[in-house]
């Protein structure tokens, strides 16, 4: 409804003009209004189609659409796969680092550098087992970020850019999303590894979003660079398990979603140095039904844009930026791992004004992203597929 108001304003003078002119001209200008209002309106699930673009994957986690239309897909077990002409290439890609494949760990996100066409950099996150000399639990792991180039079926020029510290012996909450802000920085989301109190500890990388230069160097203007005892890579803190992150196409603001406790999944806007409150405030309760905090808000702690009760286990989201999605342009699509559907969130400014379920029973959604072709690629863990959502005809 709101969308019609500016339209109305715009055409009101025309309509008045029509009244002053002959009746026929008046009628014509009126019909013009209704047609235009209708064509801007109401894309629905029924006007979209789902095409399978890859099958036969084992526990896929994320995908990246290459400029030539090939698709790179991570499999959580530790393999990187290529999909060519709609067929899964049986030859896996070599050079993938050793992953800690246990619980929720494994090979996680993949994203192409914004200038991939010229520099060829591919960024990959994964749960990395404790290496000699690293801080933390023996037999533990934490999230790491590498970049590499693809030559035929091999990763080359592999550079480790970052490893979250300390290593923790738990199977859960790795986070792992990678985004670029096109100003030369890369952001990586990190889960609290099952130790909620450490989300508030600036001396540890758990439950944080970190910001790095694209080559892994730590920016000197990060918010906690001068804070004693704080890790300089930290950009925001107080997160639980953030597994969705995307830059808003026009404002450049980072939107993030995270798995909360029972009834406390959140959608947040990520801003420098801020504390998102886990576990000091939350809308959820623990999965053993115990109370984590009696507070849902406290001074100095950020509120989510929205939260999900019951939890949907959000995993992957994208803004729709292509005109072919019509009145959904600028909205968010969020995947639900738990309930196997997508949610369409109507976004206005920094607010979500409505939510609807689309493509119910599509599968366990791990990743949702818009490719350069404007279509949305969804990774489905249970069926081992990648599907493409695009407007019909």
């Amino acid at each position, binding site marked *: 409804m709101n969308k019609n108001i500016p339209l109305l304003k715009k055409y009101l003078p025309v309509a008045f003009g029509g009244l002053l002119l002959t009746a026929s001209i008046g009628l014509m200008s009126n019909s013009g209004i209704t047609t235009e209002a209708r064509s801007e309106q109401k894309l629905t699930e029924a006007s979209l189609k789902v095409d399978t673009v890859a099958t036969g994957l084992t526990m896929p986690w994320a995908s990246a659409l290459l400029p030539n239309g090939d698709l790179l897909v991570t499999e959580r077990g530790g393999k990187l796969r290529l999909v060519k002409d709609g067929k899964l290439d049986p030859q896996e890609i070599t050079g993938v680092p050793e992953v800690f494949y246990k619980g929720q*760990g494994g090979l996680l996100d993949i994203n192409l550098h914004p200038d991939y066409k010229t520099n060829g950099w591919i960024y990959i996150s994964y749960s990395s087992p404790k290496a000699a000399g690293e801080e933390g639990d023996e037999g533990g792991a934490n999230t790491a970020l590498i970049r590499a180039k693809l030559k035929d079926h091999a990763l080359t020029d592999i550079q480790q850019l970052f490893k979250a510290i300390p290593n923790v012996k738990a*199977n859960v909450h790795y986070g792992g999303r990678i985004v670029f802000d096109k100003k030369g920085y890369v952001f990586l989301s990190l889960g609290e590894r099952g130790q909620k109190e450490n989300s508030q500890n600036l001396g540890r990388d758990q439950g944080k979003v970190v910001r790095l230069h694209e080559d892994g160097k730590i920016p000197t203007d990060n918010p906690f660079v001068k804070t004693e005892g704080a890790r300089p890579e930290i950009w925001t803190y107080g997160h639980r398990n953030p597994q969705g992150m995307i830059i808003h196409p026009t404002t450049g603001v980072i939107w993030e979603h995270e798995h909360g406790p029972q009834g406390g999944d959140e959608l947040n806007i990520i801003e420098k140095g801020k504390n998102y409150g886990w576990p000091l405030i939350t809308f959820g309760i623990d*999965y*053993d039904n115990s109370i984590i905090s009696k507070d849902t808000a406290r001074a100095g702690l950020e509120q989510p844009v929205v939260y999900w009760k019951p939890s949907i286990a959000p995993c992957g989201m994208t803004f729709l930026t292509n005109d072919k999605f019509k009145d959904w342009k600028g909205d968010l699509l969020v995947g639900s791992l738990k309930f196997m559907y997508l949610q369409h969130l109507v976004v206005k400014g920094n607010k979500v004004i409505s939510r609807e379920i689309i493509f119910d029973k599509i599968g366990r959604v791990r990743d949702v992203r818009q490719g350069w072709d404007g279509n949305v690629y969804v990774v489905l863990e249970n069926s081992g597929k990648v599907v493409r959502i695009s407007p019909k005809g």
Partner: protein
Amino acid sequence: MKLLLGLLSAAIFCSAIMPGQDDELAKSIERGKMVYSENCITCHMSAGEGIPASFPPLAKSDYFDKNPDNAIKTVKFGLIGKIKVNGMEYDNMMPNPGLGNDEIADVVNYIMNSWGNTSEKKIVTEKMVEETKEKK
């Protein structure tokens, strides 16, 4: 006389090992509770009740009655596709949680002895898990 002696020694032997087994089971259940709260609780919920039509219950589940190996198999290999539990159909996927055989034994012992379930003091051991194969 020989028979009596045999019976007597058997009885003594049993009384000596039985508390040991119970103790082992209790310890395994305790460890299993931790494994459960890390890997299973978000879908199967704190009282094993699951979420109707999405995630099957573990509490008093007839899926385990029919074949006790099902619990070990599911935790060891994950599960995909249609199953029927307590009269309701589920068509979902449980990813292989990637646990060690010791952790699988612990969590199965916990599940089989919680929320009204009982293994009647039988314990699942690491060795049993190791010997469990995906296909029958």
